[in-house]
């Protein structure tokens, strides 16, 4: 075994390794779509080893907010790697202090107690523990249908995506699911005074992307306050400018009891996540008979990760990227809405706010085919990987540093892709959806044949 094991491998050998030792189905999908080998990335582009370049409008679902290889963030990371990469127990890493200073300057003043983690799911779990401690005796939680707060075993208990949960746990009678944007349903759910918390993404993200009515969050907050229920705002996708405001809660002026942050906070370099809560929540949790030291602690990210996070916030602020998201995003939002008007056979609507945008497709085959057509034109989009949904949203999450010309290029390619789709018969869409819903059960060789891939499944 050697650290340079894979340095000379060809594409087939890489796929074989991924199929045997990582994720066999993901490897099959990569083989089926004949993907090239990733080389490097810069700004809005990702480059393959064969020299091909791709505009990255997938953005790892919001991670690359400041672009790939942002100079300031990279410098902070390399400096930390050189000087002091680790965060050791019993010490303070200066990057932690820097991060906390930045957070206290950008977050609502009340949200000043932090627990750290290395993923959004981890801090979702910390928030869950906090709300159950702070509201003893209340077992219920309200979530939004389609909502996402991570896929660790604890976070699954508040996952609003049944298709990702049902194989692991049964439906919990204490989990109340409301339709997106339905504040009245939240109010009804809280009427009994037995709900510990409402978990909500201020803009419902993922393949369920939906911008709620303006009054939704304030009304939910009001219902929470009247019933003593805690409000947890999951800003893991929306935080740090994606929606055109630094935090999506700013669109309505609501300040939650707990806010969850990750994705963009990494600057595209190293995993990091934060749950910020009010002192009131923390004190209430500490009064619980079930409180014990460490119960709200998470995995402390490395010093290098916290340096990346602090540099990212600084970059977002100094370049006023939220304002840029609103300004530059206008063309993308209008372009996507125009695509819906021109191609209603394939598209339902174009939800969007800032640079958090997408196309709600008529069925999974439309999402899949647009995604493939765009990839053939050198553009990567945020595919839902959710063929069980009726109308998945294909996401467009470019960096907030994206150039207007890149947006125009994407819209032109989208129109070409949709025109290509227009020339396909309706029955084909149904047939492809049928196939997509069974694709993982098909013989791998057949999948590759259907996709005209010359790669092999030898794992």
């Amino acid at each position, binding site marked *: *075994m050697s*650290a340079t094991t*894979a340095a000379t491998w060809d594409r087939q050998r890489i796929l074989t*390794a991924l199929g*045997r030792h*990582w994720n066999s189905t993901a490897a099959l999908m*990569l083989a089926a779509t004949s993907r*090239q080998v*990733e080389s*490097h*990335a810069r700004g809005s582009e990702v480059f393959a080893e064969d020299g091909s370049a791709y505009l990255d409008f997938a953005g*790892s679902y919001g991670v*690359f907010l400041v672009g790939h290889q942002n100079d300031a963030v*990279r410098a902070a*990371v390399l400096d930390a*790697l050189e*000087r*002091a*990469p*680790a*965060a*050791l*127990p*019993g010490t*303070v*890493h*200066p990057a932690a202090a820097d991060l*906390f200073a930045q957070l206290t*300057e*950008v977050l*609502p*003043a009340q949200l000043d*107690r*932090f627990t750290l983690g290395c993923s959004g799911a981890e801090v979702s779990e910390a928030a869950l523990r906090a709300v159950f401690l702070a509201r003893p005796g209340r*077992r219920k939680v309200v979530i939004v249908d389609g909502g996402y707060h991570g896929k*660790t*075993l604890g976070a699954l208990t508040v996952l609003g995506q049944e298709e*990702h949960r049902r194989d*692991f746990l049964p439906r*919990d009678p*204490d989990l109340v699911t409301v339709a997106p944007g339905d504040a009245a349903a939240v109010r009804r759910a809280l009427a009994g005074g037995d709900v510990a918390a409402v978990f909500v993404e201020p803009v419902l993200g993922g393949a369920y992307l939906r911008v709620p009515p303006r009054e939704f969050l*304030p009304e939910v907050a*009001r219902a929470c306050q009247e019933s003593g229920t*805690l409000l947890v705002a999951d800003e893991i996708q929306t935080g740090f400018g994606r929606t*055109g*405001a630094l935090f999506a809660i700013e669109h309505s002026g*609501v*300040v939650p009891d707990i806010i969850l942050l*990750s994705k963009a906070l*990494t600057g*595209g*370099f*190293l995993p*990091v996540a934060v749950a910020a*809560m009010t002192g009131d929540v923390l004190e209430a949790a500490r009064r619980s008979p079930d409180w014990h*030291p*460490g119960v709200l*602690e998470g995995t402390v990210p490395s*010093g290098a990760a916290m340096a990346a996070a602090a540099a990212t916030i600084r970059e977002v602020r100094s370049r006023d990227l939220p304002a840029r998201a609103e300004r530059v995003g206008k063309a993308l939002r209008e372009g996507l809405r125009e695509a819906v008007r021109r191609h209603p056979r394939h598209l339902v609507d174009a939800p969007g706010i800032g640079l958090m945008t997408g196309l709600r497709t008529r069925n999974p085959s439309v999402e899949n085919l647009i995604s493939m057509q765009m*990839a053939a034109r050198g553009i990567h989009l945020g595919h839902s990987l959710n063929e069980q949904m009726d109308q998945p949203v294909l996401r467009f999450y470019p960096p907030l540093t994206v150039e207007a010309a890149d947006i125009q290029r994407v819209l032109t390619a989208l129109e070409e892709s949709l025109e290509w789709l227009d020339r396909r018969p309706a029955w084909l869409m149904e047939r492809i959806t049928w196939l997509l819903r069974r694709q993982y059960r098909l013989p791998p060789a057949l999948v590759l044949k259907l996709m005209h891939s010359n790669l092999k499944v030898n794992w």
Partner: protein
Amino acid sequence: MTLPHTADHTTPTAANPAGASPDHRRSAPATAGADPVALVRRHLIQEPPTGLPVPVIERQNGARIEARDGTVWLDAAGGGFGGGHLAVRAALAEQARRTALSSRILLSRPLAGAVTDLAAFCPGPLSVSYLCNSGNEALDASLKLAKGTHPGRGTVLGIRGESYGTLSHGQSLRSGRPVLPGAPLRPETVPADAPETLLERVDASVAAVVIAPAAPGRPLERLPRSWWVQLRERCHRTGALLVLDERLTGPARLGSDLGAGALGIFPDVLLLGETLGADAVPVGAAVMTAAAYQRVYGRRNPSLHGSTFGANPLSAAAVSAVLGAVTSDRLAERQREFAAEAGRLREGPAGLGDTVRELHADGSLLWVRARDAAGAAALAGALARRAVLTRPPSGDLLTLLPPLTAERTDTDQILARLADALKDVAAHRTEEATA
């Protein structure tokens, strides 16, 4: 929570047109020039301060930590790989300059290398790696795998008081009681001083058994090979997933590549933690048998489990670089040398005296069991006065975990200062008794 219209520092919704940001943040930086230690203590939710000095890290190299105030500390707290390893640092910097996190739409050469290296490093049929962002998440992933294997089973077994990480199910195992009311798995635990009783608790209601080869307070030889073979056999018979938790013990920590090698069994899942990321890149791995993986995730949507950051190129590069260094630098051998030196602390005319009940080292997993919790705290304090950084004691137990790459001169110093601290505590105890 603050509502629009109800707080004087938020802008009412009606007056907040789309895109306008209400100025509910501090008007001026409240932290400018603040003391880093005070700032972190003010905001980080953590256990109360121990009263020990807290160095602000300026530079790390192996076990040596240069603090901002000019003091130089020796790290016996991190339990990781250690900063400053030239080859590993160069590999990380090179990958960080290319691509660190990724949208994962293209093939990842570093990932292919890392999972191949892990399969080669781990014993027997352990060949499929779930790469994630921490050892704690890796442990959680193994429990999710167990739940996916046995959706109808609701129990996970562990040893009470041992560390199972910070996620909710891990915390439950440590405390022996659920921390979430709707938790999919309930913990059943046995006392730390009777780990062998775990065996009799394994039955068909158990989804998984999670156990480390050794732990602070539990030497590697505490559970004999025959016990491990029985555990393996009983898990096999009942279908319970056997999860070997090597977040602390692997790689190299116990003086061999993995603790698993000493047990005479192959688990279904083996967990590795932050050491794989050279303490710089958050990473963890659950390495499982192909059979265990395929039962739950085979021919399923690949997004059924996973995370945004997991399996990213930078973490993959770290895994390969660290495993390469473990072999090329013979780090396991270095930990065995440490254990041999640590054992000499028990020698001499006075032995350990009456200040401690037990001192044990499996490789560089060194722990001291004091007479009581106050004694452990006193020892931690005496070490801090000698600029040795340790984790906060757990009851009467103090653990020392120097980085794998610590230089011999530094580990010798850690042990010398420990010997000195033990004498100091003993002398203080004698003084108190006399008084």
